[in-house]
């Protein structure tokens, strides 16, 4: 018994010893979307990177609890809201870097430089090419019009992508008008909201409804599997604010032990060298304006994107959820 206890204690103490040149990343972005880039970076510079993946909220709780003892140098998430919250809770520290300022457009990073976007995710309208003419479509707001009664499919309001979309609508239109739009959407629903974008699109393809709102890379995945699928993307709000976008991005932690090395990694991730692959791995759009998207992604056409700072998505998220709850949007 004694031996076991000693062995376990030794194990507990011996395990978390890290080599000095190892950057530690807490990532809400999935392993297979980051590992190829980390591997490339290690090969190029010799700097090792270790990471754990989890949802953003538990990772943030862990960062807070660990405080000054955290092994993490970088936090990576798949939406702006969680980065905004991490910054608000004080676990991210500002980074003054001309490279990052040059590579990442202003509306895709924190005004206080605590986090930076690394890829852009566009949330747009998808429609059935059999039952909808693109000329019938115009904007997110228009999907609340009576002509879409019983023809709309949506993903659940619990997903942060929808919360960000509605947060940005609040920023543009204010609460009252946004509420009316949400109620219109709920009235037009053909069926209860789905748990994911793929299901939403499958329902449209199968004829349960005619239009929906999805992130483009989910559409890309379906299209890759079935190039004949009778769905197409529509870029809404082109005469107004533009298509709603979100980011996946990262920031350097307050108590980073390898701050400079981590900043260099972040800069590299925003560089032309890394951006193409970073975005292409998940069929997203690069943040770096000099880099062009993947061929399939480019084939969906160019669009005007909303240029409000994505930090607003975090700031207004609570308000957005409340409006959606009140409108009965599950």
């Amino acid at each position: 018994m004694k031996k076991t206890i000693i062995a376990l204690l030794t194990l507990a103490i011996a395990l978390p010893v890290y080599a000095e040149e190892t950057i530690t990343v807490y990532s809400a972005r999935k392993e297979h979307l980051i590992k190829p880039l980390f591997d490339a970076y290690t090969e190029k510079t010799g700097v090792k990177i270790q990471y754990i993946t989890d949802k953003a909220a538990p990772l943030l709780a862990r960062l807070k609890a660990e405080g000054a003892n955290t092994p993490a140098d970088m936090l990576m998430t798949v939406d702006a809201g969680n980065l905004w919250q991490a910054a608000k809770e004080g676990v991210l520290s500002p980074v003054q870097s001309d490279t990052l300022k040059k590579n990442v457009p202003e509306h895709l990073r924190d005004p206080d430089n605590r986090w930076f976007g690394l890829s852009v995710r566009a949330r747009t309208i998808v429609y059935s090419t059999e039952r909808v003419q693109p000329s019938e479509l115009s904007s997110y707001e228009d999907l609340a019009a009576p002509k879409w009664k019983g023809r709309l499919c949506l993903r659940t309001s619990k997903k942060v992508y929808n919360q960000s979309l509605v947060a940005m609508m609040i920023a543009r239109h204010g609460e009252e008008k946004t509420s009316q739009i949400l109620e219109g959407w709920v009235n037009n629903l053909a069926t209860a909201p789905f748990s994911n974008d793929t299901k939403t699109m499958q329902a449209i393809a199968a004829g349960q409804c005619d239009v929906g709102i999805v992130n483009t890379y989910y559409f890309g995945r379906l299209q890759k599997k079935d190039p004949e699928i009778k769905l197409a993307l529509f870029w809404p709000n082109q005469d107004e604010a533009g298509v709603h976008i979100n980011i996946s991005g990262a920031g350097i932690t307050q108590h980073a032990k390898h701050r400079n090395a981590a900043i260099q990694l972040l800069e590299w991730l925003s560089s032309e060298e890394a951006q193409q692959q970073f975005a292409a791995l998940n069929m997203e759009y690069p943040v770096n304006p000099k880099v062009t998207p993947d061929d399939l992604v480019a084939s969906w056409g160019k669009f005007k994107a909303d240029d409000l700072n994505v930090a607003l998505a975090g700031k207004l998220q609570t308000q957005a959820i409340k409006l959606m709850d009140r409108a009965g949007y599950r």
Partner: protein
Amino acid sequence: MHEITPDNPILRPEARKGRLPGRLNKWHYASGALALLVAIPLLVVFSGWLQPDTEIWSHLAETLLNQLFINTIKLVIGVGLGVTLLGVTLAWLTTRCDFPGRGLFDWMLMLPLAIPAYVMAFVAIGLLDFSGPVQTALRSWLGVGHYWFPEIRSTGGVIAVMVLVLYPYVYMLARTAFLTQGRSTLEAAQTLGYGPLEVFRRVALPMARPAIVAGTSLALMETLADFGTVATFNYDTFTTAIYKAWFGFFSLQTASQLASLLLLFVFISLMTERATRRRAQYHDTMRSGKPTRFILHGWRGWSITAALSLLFAIAFLIPFIQLCLWAMESISEEFDSRYFGLLYHTLLLGLLAALLTSACALVLGFARRYQRDRLTAFTVNIANLGYALPGSVLAVGIMIALTQSDHFFHRLTGLLGYNTTGQILGGSVFALLIAYVIRFMAVAHGPVETGLSRIRYSLPEAARTLGARPREILTRIYLPLIRPGLLTAMLLVLVDTMKEMPATLLMRPFGWDTLAVRIYEMTSEGEWERAALPAITLVLVGLLPVILLVRKTLQDR
């Protein structure tokens, strides 16, 4: 009542049932220590009340809370009735009746345990929703709108899926209970003129009550804590509100407050159930050989075979085949040499957790057996609460407790003049194992306790009279007699640990990825097809202990 033997607590319970103990002994300390281990992270969760956030509460109360309560109650009643009816019926059929294929169904009916609930949910929706293959086929034969089909994304759908994945808890515990019921009792009942149904209803069922209740409580705790399944159905329960508060409103405090209400509810239910059976004893006084089975002849037997085949197909075969089909699509891009590492970590963590948790459960079981006072009932119930919390909330509670102990250690060494930093417990394998023990104590405790409750007190007493030492009584009387229960406990914990996601994700040491982590990576953005390969590996690995258990319990008979 028998004479009290205070010098010999291993033999008889104190006669002070239902009172506070007069004197504390080693069982109080042991169960107290385990309860404390579980209580610390729970206290972290309860500490959410220190910072009340009335704004979110009033919003929830205004908009969602009513519906959430109604949904949760519907789910609990539906799943509770479903798993109990299904689990007990199946256990009775396979242990006490005979029909074609009985030997096969005996173990096959345990297999759905290996299928994670969220996988079952996804397969069910994938197959049966409007855009799924079943309805698509119906549309092409009958035309749009010319057929009726039940809506799978509904209360009934969630309940059905949960019952299918959770009934094995009841089945396995009831099965062990029926298997260990002695021949004489049942035969006495038959001599009195009872038919199979009456023997079941009036003798076997009441005797198996602790086991059935234990199984049903496990299933219900898992139902209350479940997030993956209800999220796939977009069905709003109390747990949904917990995650909404945390992930949506960024308020871990409110999430903790909601979670602690859930805990309180479970705790009160557990205490109430205990209170209603405090006086009853469930020892089998005439344990003697294998009872005869009721043989179901002809069409009766075959209709049972047909019904069980259908159930097995729905609960295991169809989801399994669907997983295989998906796995074949993605095997070339998914399979690589790292798979062996995943497998190794999964098994190692599972086995260690199974051993450790069962050992702790055994201590709790003995404590409960020998100290039938209120304090022990209280501590044992506390120690079992980890299973009732939503996984992520518990994981965060444990993580915070462990990192706080790290901070404490650093302050301590600082005072002593040493300067240490970094993680000590946090992020270690040890920490992860503690988390599993806390989470799955109830899972191991159920079968262990029902196993113990069947051993009458006079047996170890007799051994004692014959001069056996306490150690010998343990190894030669208790362990052989509770072996089926202990094995069931280890199997359940092993399978549950291998499927466990939130604690593994949050607390695994760097590089310690498991199959469940891999499943999370793929499913977190809806790539279910790519998750099929790790999911199938998980199911296959989970099958090995199931088969082992069945062989063991068969030998025991």
